[in-house]
């Protein structure tokens, strides 16, 4: 029989250390829903999504009960809607409404893919979709949106960067009466992955099969607890402990994904090897870094500690899973991480330090609340900086900032649930980047793109 210690370790991880599967995300291709009549096309979208995912929530709940593992979110990602808009024309809001209706019918937590990929330029449908994002995210609750504005291969589309600064601001303004929640459902990417199960950036890439199951695991609390049992070990030992823990966490995700794909009769895509925090105490990535010996997340040494953590998570997870993908690494969303909220409140964690951290972790400037008076050009400049880090380092970076309309640094916004809450962090509003942003054009792809 299985070792008693191992059994109790697993139960302790789930009961006391917040071990969970963060999401089962079903990716659904909508390419066969394209129609030159937008009303008919939106109906086909609703029909296909509700048919393919009709058992997703029930299957997730069955696995939760049988295996005793909490599965926090059941989600759907779809083909970037800009592609359907290209075929149908018309106002893409109809698609947002169809996706929202499908999400409500299915009982899922989020649906992602109100997206456009414009790293090299705008094609038919892209501009009208991007311009509809503020309205789409204000009239829906479950729809998530993302725009890819750069890649290592293509460079950075600075016209799109300039546009997205305005769109982020407008999205926050359109939901100003609801704590600007719209901006929390919008991500601007460089090197966006096509099989990402995490929101708000999930969409179903064109190279993906018709329908696929992707799984995102979590477990910052488990890693922190494992590190705390080695108070005097050197960093080689810490890396080994994290690898072993990540292996176990990922194996659980692999099991859940394979059972779900078998039950649903859908192929299993990838496991996203992630450390995704929640605002709950004991489920924080910042606290892992502090457990390693930093007084507070954000002080000198934070980038190095995060680099070690991120690398060890991947090394441990990669052997535990048959296919790895998505974002894979440690997330640092400020408002979703109790330790980061605390460090930002004290002023020890700043946007500049977070930007450095994004060079070594899996995503980017995530869930950062900025003053409502921040100009669209400054938001664009933040996006450009972050995209440059992703482009040059051949990695995914993203920006999800929430301009707190009508509020200033020092105040707080409360989103509730997994999105958490956080202080408004100061931005260099007093110095302009407008001239640089208004130049437009493209930042050419870097030399490292020429690998052939």
């Amino acid at each position, binding site marked *: 029989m299985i070792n*008693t210690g191992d*059994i*109790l370790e697993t*139960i302790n991880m789930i*009961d006391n250390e917040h071990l969970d599967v963060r999401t089962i995300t079903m990716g659904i291709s909508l390419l066969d829903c394209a129609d030159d009549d937008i009303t008919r096309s939106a109906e086909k979208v609703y029909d296909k999504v509700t048919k393919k995912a009709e058992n997703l929530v029930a299957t997730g709940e069955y696995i939760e009960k*049988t*295996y*005793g593992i909490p599965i926090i979110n059941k989600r759907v990602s779809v083909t970037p809607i800009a592609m359907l808009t290209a075929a149908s024309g018309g106002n893409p809001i109809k698609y947002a409404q169809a996706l929202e209706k499908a999400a409500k019918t299915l009982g899922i937590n989020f649906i992602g893919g109100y997206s456009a990929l414009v790293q090299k330029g705008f094609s038919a449908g892209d501009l009208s979709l991007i311009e509809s994002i503020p309205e789409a995210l204000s009239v829906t609750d479950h729809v998530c949106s993302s725009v890819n504005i750069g890649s290592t291969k293509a460079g950075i589309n600075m016209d799109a960067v300039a546009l997205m600064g305005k769109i982020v601001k407008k999205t926050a303004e359109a939901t100003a009466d609801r704590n600007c929640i719209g901006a929390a459902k919008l991500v601007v990417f460089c090197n966006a992955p096509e099989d990402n199960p995490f929101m708000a950036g999930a969409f179903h890439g064109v190279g993906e099969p018709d329908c696929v199951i992707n799984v995102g695991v979590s477990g910052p609390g488990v890693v922190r607890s494992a590190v705390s049992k080695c108070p005097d070990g050197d960093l080689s030992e810490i890396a080994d402990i994290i690898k072993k823990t990540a292996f*176990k966490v990922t194996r659980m995700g692999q099991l859940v994904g394979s059972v779900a794909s078998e039950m649903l009769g859908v192929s299993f895509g990838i496991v996203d090897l992630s450390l995704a925090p929640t605002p709950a105490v004991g489920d924080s990535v910042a606290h892992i870094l502090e457990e390693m010996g930093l007084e507070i997340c954000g002080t000198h040494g934070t980038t190095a500690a995060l680099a070690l953590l991120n690398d060890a998570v991947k090394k441990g997870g990669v052997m535990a899973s048959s296919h790895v993908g998505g974002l894979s690494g440690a997330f640092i969303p400020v408002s979703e991480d109790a330790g980061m909220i605390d460090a930002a409140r004290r002023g020890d964690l700043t946007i500049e330090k977070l930007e450095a951290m994004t060079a070594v972790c899996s995503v980017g400037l995530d869930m950062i609340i900025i003053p409502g008076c921040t100009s669209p050009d400054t938001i664009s400049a933040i996006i450009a900086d972050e995209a440059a880090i992703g482009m040059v380092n051949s990695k995914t970076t993203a920006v999800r900032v929430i301009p707190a309309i009508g509020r200033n640094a020092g105040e707080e916004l409360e989103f509730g649930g997994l999105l958490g809450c956080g202080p408004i962090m100061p931005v260099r509003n007093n110095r302009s980047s407008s001239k640089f942003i208004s130049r437009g054009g493209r930042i050419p792809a870097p030399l490292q793109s020429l690998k052939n």
Partner: protein
Amino acid sequence: MRAIVSVVGKDSVGILAEVSRECAAHNANILDVTQSVMQDMFTMIMLVDIADISSDFASISSNLEKLGDKIGMKIHVMHEDIFNSMHRI
């Protein structure tokens, strides 16, 4: 299908009997039991065959959890594959 039933809590008379009775009531066959008492803390792990249970997994699991609440123990029922996959390569 086999499940692991884990029972943890303060030691008292009749824990094994109570849990076994609940398993029998659902026609779940106990294949293996290991238990230990360290400093008054009782830990028992049961391997149970649930292929022919008279109800479904959800009801045996929730009934055992309720029994745990009644006798002051923490009882979990989980499919054995979760442990196999996490702790074996």
